[in-house]
């Protein structure tokens, strides 16, 4: 065992950090072998996840427990819980790892939290703040105001709202591309994905996907979108927005992630309690790993392992 892990130590694969809402824990999946490892107890019906860019920390929101768990991702240990006055849901971490952005689902605000000092700043987002993402340069934070059918752009330095962009009906997950030029949000009620030009701060177009889309991942110049009711992943060309494929996946797929090399897509299936891997080129299903009960993993759940 020990020898084996030493030998493969140089080429460790990424990991997925999957909060399971029904079983109240966090499953860590080795994405190379597609095998689940430790399940960390979390509590409070965990749903949202963000992993720091350096892979050191994972942050898990517990909407019903009213706290955010700070997880030492290497040691697989919960370091502390940050109390949250509201229902913490969507979460993102700044590229430098020094700030958390947490949406209060039943309130109207996005909170910036310093995970060390727990100092906070607040900004109004609107009705039902849900998905959150930060641009790769750390300058902007984008949050979905689900019930306002809008994406809100926040200046990270002043933590002030700089734009509100009307999108489709009930935007949920938010994903920003590697260049920081575009944001994508899945509109649960209008069955499409709104593509936003972040410099212009305007809607480029809505790309049609399947029924009840939740999460979006980007790889190989394509967008991969989990459709919860259709139980598929829709693929479209990120430049032309032309539809490319529809991939049948597990039951009630929700969150989508991508490997660091862009070669593999991962999708969580809330009802069937598993994580599937999909080849981003051939669209073939390449693996399945069991999770806990009710995997949500709302956010960026893939951890880079060095």
């Amino acid at each position, binding site marked *: 065992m020990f020898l084996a892990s030493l030998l493969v130590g140089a080429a460790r694969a990424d990991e997925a950090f999957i909060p399971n*809402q*029904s079983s109240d824990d966090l499953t860590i999946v080795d994405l190379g072998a597609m095998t689940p490892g430790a399940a960390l107890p979390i509590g409070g*019906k965990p*749903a949202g996840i963000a992993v720091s860019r350096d892979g050191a920390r994972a942050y898990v929101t517990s909407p*019903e427990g009213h706290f955010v768990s700070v997880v030492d991702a290497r040691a697989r240990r919960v370091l502390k819980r940050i109390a949250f006055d509201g229902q913490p849901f969507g979460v993102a971490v700044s590229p430098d790892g020094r700030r958390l952005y947490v949406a209060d*689902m*039943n309130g109207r605000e996005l909170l910036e939290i310093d995970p060390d000092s727990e100092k906070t700043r607040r900004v109004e987002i609107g009705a039902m703040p849900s998905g959150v993402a930060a641009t790769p340069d750390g300058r902007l934070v984008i949050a979905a105001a*689900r019930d306002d059918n809008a994406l809100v752009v926040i200046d990270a330095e002043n933590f002030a709202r700089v734009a509100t962009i009307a999108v489709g009906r009930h935007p949920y997950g938010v994903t920003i591309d590697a260049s920081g030029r575009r944001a994508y949000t899945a509109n649960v009620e209008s069955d499409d994905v709104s593509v936003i030009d972040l410099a212009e701060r305007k809607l480029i177009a809505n790309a049609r996907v399947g029924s009840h889309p939740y999460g979006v991942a980007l790889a190989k110049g394509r967008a991969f979108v989990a459709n919860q*009711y259709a139980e598929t992943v829709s693929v479209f060309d990120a430049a032309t927005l032309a539809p490319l494929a529809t991939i049948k996946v597990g039951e009630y797929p929700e969150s989508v992630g991508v490997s660091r090399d862009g070669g593999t897509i991962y999708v969580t299936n809330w009802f069937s309690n598993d994580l599937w891997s999909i080849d981003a080129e051939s669209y073939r299903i390449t693996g399945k790993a069991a999770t806990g009960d*009710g995997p949500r993993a709302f956010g960026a759940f893939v951890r880079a392992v060095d």
Partner: protein
Amino acid sequence: MSFVIPRRALIVAAVALIPAAAFAHGPSRQKVVEKIEIDAPPAKVWAIVGNFGDLSWLPGVAKTEGTGGNTPDQAKRKLTLANGGVIEETLTKYDEAGQSLSYKIDSVDVKILPVNNYSSTITVKDVGGKTEVEWKGAFYRGFMNNDPPPELSDEASLKAVTDLYKAGLASLKAKAEAK
């Protein structure tokens, strides 16, 4: 079989005054899976289950008014319950070969069934000439914000849907196994 909990109807009615539009996506989504073995060929069971416009096999349903046949997103059915309650549903998926259909509830009063955002799938499977029917549901509890009253809690929604599926599957079994 009853959809209603009469003793609690008054409390529930008060809660139901909160406008539906104000419901957030608050609590955790719940799931229920119930299965039953039926001593009848799958085709016979699917002939009953696979007709979306007829839910007469479900106890408590007095009348089904179906339109749109079995075409997903077009087929709708309106259930009038024996107790007067009304449930409106839309077919979302129909897999003839896989003997499976999915639907969602478009409107129901939480007094009738204490759920929100309810979707469901029924699948008929061949197990060596006999049949296994699996009925799955995904939904939120009746009260979408914090601190629900007991009759609109996660537990209450789980119990209501579990009881519904159990009673429905038992009735389906009796009907399919009848000569």
